[in-house]
């Protein structure tokens, strides 16, 4: 309930938010991308991640040549708003001219991208409860279900059936990761000395499968499977800002 209230508050806050400070945009416009990254990162840390901020941060990271961070920002922006134009344009640019690979979305994923994962879940839960109450309430009152009740029941079950592929596609979209290291090898076996099969570039999006021995089995955009070290990729689901891979772990 608390989480739901926080989400509602977040939406309302986003609706009523004033225009963002122009300093980051100004820095971006004059080509000071490092400053723009710094300012947008601070903004995300202070006020929370929105699709617009993440997409803008992705653009600045791309300009700095940090493909992994940029693609991750765009992917996370699309998790918040699947139709964010800046993030979609950035990914399209990366795929067309930036040398980045991204698995072609499945039918369920394209369907799921129509709404956010939370909205699919709310639709499914709401329709489920509507159907349950349509069945239970007449029984509890000891009366026969009326015509309106029957139509509501059919409608709720239809919405529930339509939201199931959305939920499935949302789960599939979550099971992806972005390659963060510039020289990453797809290995045959999950060992340190595993035979490198081929290289995957920084910024490539891969589907993740299982973990073993500190490695993750991934499937690339062209269907090749192999193992990469867990630290070489970062999941699409995660906190707003990409992880700082150069930062040393705390003792």
């Amino acid at each position: 309930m608390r989480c739901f209230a926080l989400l509602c508050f977040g939406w309302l806050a986003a609706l009523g938010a004033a225009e963002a400070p122009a300093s980051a945009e100004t820095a971006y416009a004059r080509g000071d991308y490092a400053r723009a990254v710094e300012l947008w990162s601070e903004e995300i840390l202070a006020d929370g991640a929105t699709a617009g901020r993440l997409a803008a941060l992705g653009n600045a990271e791309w300009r700095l040549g940090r493909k992994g961070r940029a693609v991750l920002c765009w992917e996370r922006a699309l998790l918040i708003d699947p139709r964010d134009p800046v993030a979609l344009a950035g990914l399209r640019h990366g795929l067309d001219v930036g040398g980045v690979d991204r698995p072609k979305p499945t039918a369920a994923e394209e369907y799921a991208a129509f709404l956010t994962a939370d909205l699919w879940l709310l639709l499914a839960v709401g329709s489920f409860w509507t159907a349950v109450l349509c069945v239970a309430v007449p029984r509890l009152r000891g009366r026969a279900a009326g015509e309106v009740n029957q139509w509501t029941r059919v409608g709720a079950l239809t919405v529930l059936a339509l939201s199931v592929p959305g939920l499935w596609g949302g789960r599939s979209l979550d099971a992806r990761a972005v390659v963060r290291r510039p020289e990453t090898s797809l290995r045959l076996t999950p060992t340190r000395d595993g035979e490198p099969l081929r290289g995957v570039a920084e910024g490539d999006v891969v589907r993740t499968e299982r973990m073993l021995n500190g490695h993750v089995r991934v499937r690339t955009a062209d269907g090749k499977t192999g193992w990469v070290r867990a630290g070489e990729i970062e999941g699409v689901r995660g906190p707003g800002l990409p992880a700082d891979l150069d930062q040393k772990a705390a003792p």
Partner: protein
Amino acid sequence: MRRLLSCCVMLCLGLLARAEDRVSWEITPRVTAPGQPFRLQIMVESDVVLGGAQFISREIKPPRGMALRLSGQLIRPGSNEATFNFSGVAPEQNGEHVIPSFTLRFTRKAVVVPEIRLRVSDQVAYRRETQARAELVLPDRVFYVGELIRGAIRMRGGEDEAVVASYGLESLAEGFSMTVTAERQAMPDALGQGLQTTFDLTPLREGEGEFSLNGIMLVQSGESGVFSQNGRDRPFAFRRRLTVAHVPERGRPPEWNGAIGRFVAEGLQVSKDNPEVGEPIRLRAILTGEGNLDRILPPELRGDETWDVLPANERRRRAEDQRMFVYTLVPRLPGRLRTPAVRLAAFDPATKTFSKLEFAPLEITVTGNAPAQVDLVTADPAAPAATTLKPVTGLAAPQPGRSPGLFAGSPQGTLGDAAGFWSANAVALGLVVVATAVTGVLGYLAAHPEIRRRRRARAVMRAALAEAAACQDRRDAHGFAVAVVRGLQAGVAARLAAEEQAMTQSDVERVLPGADRARLDRLFLRAHADRFAPAGPRGADDGAAEDLALLRQLLSLS
């Protein structure tokens, strides 16, 4: 006068002289055969009141091969005499065996017991088989560091004695680790009556070590039962010097990894017969046999061009005397592959030779594609340059202030990941299901009133039965008839869906066709006659059992 004076002086000297403690002992029988049980009694007489004795068993040190235990002591309060009884078993060697002098410590003073001598001679007629005896089962050979030695103490009953219990097992094993694996188990039938305690010994270092075991077994003689009073305890003591050596380096194979004993390579198992290239599978090598299974280091498997080997946790199933070595294998190539060879060597301490064990490799069919080292690209150098232009793309202008709308997601997690989301839904669904079920049950009961009516009738009939029985005890014939009639009316009314008060003998006959009409008339008349006229003289309460049977029959129908 002079004689009188000398007598007084002698008397005074006698009084002042310090009396000596008198200690005597007796062994029964005086001369024993090797291994024959005996009894030792020590009697102490002192000039002062002795008080309680302490640490008797700790002071006495029997010679090598002799078992001796304190079996009882007799010290009366305020007395200057004490008696100690020991039970023992003579050593196996002929000759005179000396129990060194020791000190008996009483509350008031310490009394020194002189050395005690026991003569052992094989000229004494003694049949070992008649009495209970303990035997140590331990191989008589050189042992090896890390070896698992299985030993046992067999407490065998004799022709005249049976072993019924044992207790107080003490051991001293220098340079060995000892574990009792089973205590007081019944011996196999082939070995006769008795108990057996088994143990495992593992030598820890090279050299000679002393191993001693002692304890007590409770024996019972004659034909009496277990709970009779003629049971007695009999000690046993074993001492052995054991020689321990290292497994010889000569002829030791390089793959020897600490296995000492006789083992059998049972076989290999894999978790999947047809994995894909790069898919991990589990390989289990099962080793069985007698020996130090616990101490064997897992054989090392090296990866090669076909398999990559990862470390894995192994499990040991102790009850089945087997050891399982587990490996994770990852196939590197497709096709029919053979699992890597698992080899180890074992040292047999009985034959003092090494033997090699090899698990037969399994054939696995690996599916998938071989890793391509080079992606071959076929291109025609004479072909014209690409005519299709690359799409014009670029980054869009950032819009950090853009609002996504009402239903924005979160990059960190979905609503379904929130704590309590699914549990709250499950609880609410459960409540709805329970409420619906309760409503359904109540509706069913409302639609079928006969269920409640019959239930109430059953309760009334049971109460009527109880009341009728009470009236019968009070010899109240009228009360008895009223109770039975009330029960019958309630039961019949429930069956016919009618009012209880309106039920007559005819209604009872409809429900119970075999009922005696005359008896029913008498019963109803006796119950309801008071309504119409003063009660007449009460007749004898004949046939009460039949009336109750009628009511019970109706109760069973309801």
